[in-house]
């Protein structure tokens, strides 16, 4: 083998990327509160999402207490139970996961990973956060209005969502719809930034095929979200009209309490189409950033290049495109034409192909890698296993004939919690352990992290595996009290109590994690600039945490892809993306 050495002199002239005019904060307020710096906005997004996520966590405890020990807790009645499930679902899917992956990780990582100084429209980016915060506050306010939050279920299906039998019919549903509309407006502002920054503000040498998969995932998911959220917007506006102005977009003719209502002729199915035209891409809006991040975690912590980078990129794009033509698989029991059912079942199962490619590639990246069982790696491994599990039950539910009997049972609840609850949360947690050193300059405590991982991972399985079984028995979802039914054996009640206790334990493990976040911020081990010896640009910043403008005087220049780990002959087991080309050393050159 030819000896190679790495020439410290740059091959290329310094970056000629036009310098963007950076907004320079002048006071404490504009530096930390009304900041236009993507990194500060990212942390604001993450803290807000975590705060409202904690509310959703407590709500899940309430639900589990009721399901595990029905009748024991007098403060949970049937109406409150419905309100809890609705708010838990809506918060977790939209206000936590979407906001955290795109608003949090997107803002922090995109400019750093593509070598930009900031997002391209910093002011709009700042507005995006404040509108998001307003949406969260409007949502949270529904807990305090007369009638409380809506209990319509997170899918908000009409007609029941706006009828008086559903809790929160007064203000809850109106504020929920208003909050969703605000969220979408705020997200659109942020989303424009993420997309245009990737398209336009990449540094020299950062070709699309040299971008880390994290950026690919967030980029594709943002495009999907920009195109899918309008469907929720339209549905929300139309339902708001039905509720406030008495129109009949979705509301059929109804008799309520013996009275003929003013509605007539509307189509609840129309709402379902609009909702799921958003709702299914939403699954992948959460999953694609997770796919991207987990690829980078695995590659870095296994010290090995990602297997099949091109396939990974193509699979992300293919999943993004396919996810727009599967929405009606959420509507098999709505009485659709069997040919439509067949079409949507087919497209649904086709998505399994690019997804399986990704899973194989992660496993093949691990194969004979130098696996370091760090906390981020543990979470990444936990993700792969959980995602495969959740994906397999997706094959059941994607088939019309299997779905019909399982529809609206706890099996569905277990399925989607595995695939889009636990799996993406595993990635969120792994990513926080991975990038926290860059954000704060300190490592998170390792022992607490391992404790957190094992309790969360094993606990999640002990919660959701038995839930599949309960669902197969036919226990319906959304029921406050399943009562005594011939098809439900008494052991189900014991199992439900067990699940509830595990849910409490897993919830408390998250408190350990929050403690770790705070404690390590002050007392954690200093991390240095690149503790994981990673190749991507965010680890090569001159300062840690990165300063305003991210890079020093000059932007980095990129010479290689993001996965040069364990390159034969290299001095170190990683070569940063901004390290110039290796030159054969003169004395070692072939004669």
């Amino acid at each position, binding site marked *: 083998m030819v000896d190679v050495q790495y020439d410290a002199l740059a*091959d*290329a002239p310094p970056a000629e990327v036009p310098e963007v005019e950076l907004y320079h904060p002048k006071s404490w307020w504009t530096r930390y509160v009304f900041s236009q710096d993507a990194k500060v906005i990212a942390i604001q997004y993450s803290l807000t999402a975590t705060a409202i996520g904690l509310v959703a966590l407590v709500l899940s405890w309430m639900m589990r207490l009721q399901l595990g020990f029905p009748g024991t807790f007098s403060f949970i009645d049937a109406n409150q139970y419905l309100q809890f499930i609705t708010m838990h679902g809506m918060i977790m899917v939209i206000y936590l996961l979407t906001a955290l992956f795109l608003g949090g990780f997107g803002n922090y990582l995109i400019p750093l990973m593509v070598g930009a100084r900031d997002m*391209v*429209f910093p002011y709009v980016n700042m507005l995006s956060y404040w509108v998001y915060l307003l949406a969260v506050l409007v949502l949270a306010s529904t807990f305090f209005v007369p009638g409380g939050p809506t209990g319509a279920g997170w899918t908000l299906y009409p007609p029941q969502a706006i009828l008086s039998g559903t809790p929160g019919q007064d203000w809850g549903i109106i504020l929920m719809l208003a909050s969703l509309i605000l969220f979408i407006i705020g997200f*659109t502002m942020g*989303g*424009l930034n993420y*997309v*245009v920054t990737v*398209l*336009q*503000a*990449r*540094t*020299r*040498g*950062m*070709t*699309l*095929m*040299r971008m880390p998969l994290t950026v690919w995932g967030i980029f594709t998911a943002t*495009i999907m979200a*920009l*195109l899918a959220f*309008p*469907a929720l*917007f*339209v549905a929300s506006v139309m339902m708001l*009209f039905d509720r406030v*102005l*008495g*129109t*009949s*977009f979705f509301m059929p003719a109804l008799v309520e309490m013996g009275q003929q209502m*003013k509605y*007539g*002729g*509307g*189509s609840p199915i*129309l709402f379902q*189409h*609009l909702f799921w*035209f958003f709702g299914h891409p939403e699954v992948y809006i959460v999953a694609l950033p997770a796919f991207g991040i987990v690829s980078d975690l695995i590659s870095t912590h296994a010290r090995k*290049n990602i297997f099949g*980078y*091109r396939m990974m*990129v193509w699979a992300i*794009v293919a999943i993004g*495109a396919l996810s*727009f*033509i599967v929405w009606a698989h959420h509507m098999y029991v709505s009485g659709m034409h069997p040919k439509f059912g067949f079409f949507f079942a087919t497209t649904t199962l086709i998505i399994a192909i690019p997804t399986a490619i990704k899973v194989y590639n992660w496993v093949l990246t691990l194969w004979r890698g130098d696996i370091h069982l760090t906390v981020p790696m543990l979470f990444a491994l936990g993700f792969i296993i959980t995602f495969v599990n959740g994906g397999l039950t997706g094959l059941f539910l994607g088939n019309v004939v299997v779905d019909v009997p399982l529809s609206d049972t706890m099996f569905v609840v277990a399925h989607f919690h595995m695939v889009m609850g636990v799996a993406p949360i595993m990635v969120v947690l792994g990513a926080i352990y991975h990038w926290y050193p860059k954000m704060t300059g300190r490592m998170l405590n390792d022992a607490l992290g391992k404790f957190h991982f094992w309790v969360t991972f094993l606990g999640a399985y002990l919660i959701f595996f038995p839930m599949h079984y309960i669902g197969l028995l036919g226990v319906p979802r959304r029921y406050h009290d399943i009562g005594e039914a011939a098809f439900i054996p008494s052991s189900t009640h014991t199992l439900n109590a067990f699940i509830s206790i595990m849910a409490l334990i897993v919830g408390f493990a998250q408190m350990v994690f929050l403690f770790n976040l705070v404690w390590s911020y002050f007392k954690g081990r200093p991390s240095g600039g690149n503790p994981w010896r990673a190749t991507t640009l965010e680890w090569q910043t001159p300062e840690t945490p990165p300063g305003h403008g991210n890079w020093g005087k000059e932007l980095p*220049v*990129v*010479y*290689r*892809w993001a*996965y*040069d780990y364990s390159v034969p002959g290299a001095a170190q087991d990683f070569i940063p993306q901004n390290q*110039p*080309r290796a030159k054969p050393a003169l004395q070692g050159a072939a004669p």
Partner: protein
Amino acid sequence: MSAIVLFMAVIAVIVGWWLSQQRLTAKPWLEEGAPGDFPDADAMTWPAAKIGLGVFLAVAGSLFALFISAYSMRMNMVDWRTLPVPGLLWFNTGVLVVSSIALQWAYLAARTDDMENVIIGLCAGGASAITFLVGQLVAWQQLRAAGYVVASNPANSFFYLITAAHGLHLIGGLVALGRTTAKVWRGAEMAQVRLSVELCTIYWHFMLLVWLALLGLLTGWTDNFVEICRRLLT
């Protein structure tokens, strides 16, 4: 849902075409080297604001395609009573066309550094867009006076909803146009406003296009067209 699926297909074609220019078949693990070794692979050179507008138009387009989808699904229900479209809408459409032409005028003037005509174009475009909005409000008044209130029939509800959505988008455009005009007014150099004028013009043409599609839908002209397409497909 055919309108939105069709719209998504168009977006997919555009994205696919763009991706096909991006060397997605490159093998990055073999392509170590300085920037410039791989032509056509660097970031886009268009100004960020122009790309941003393009992405925003895709989002707004998807919003209107969804309204059209919802409209065409709902109109097949039995209680639908088509609304008599006020004649004023034709006048309004004419005004919006004038507005678009005026902005095109401003854009062409901006390319030839003719500041005077830029100002004329911007002011005429803004004034006619405001006239359009006032005309829409008057049309609403006329309908309401004739008893076609928002909740009396889904056709009415859609009419108010869709015209409101279009009007709000136009008001957003007027904010940008107002800022551009103010910049010109304060004596900004041509180089500083050329891009803003161009972006306003693109947005105005887009809003005109959307309006024509919506007008076709609301007046029912497109029904024959859709029917022909359906016959061809089946």
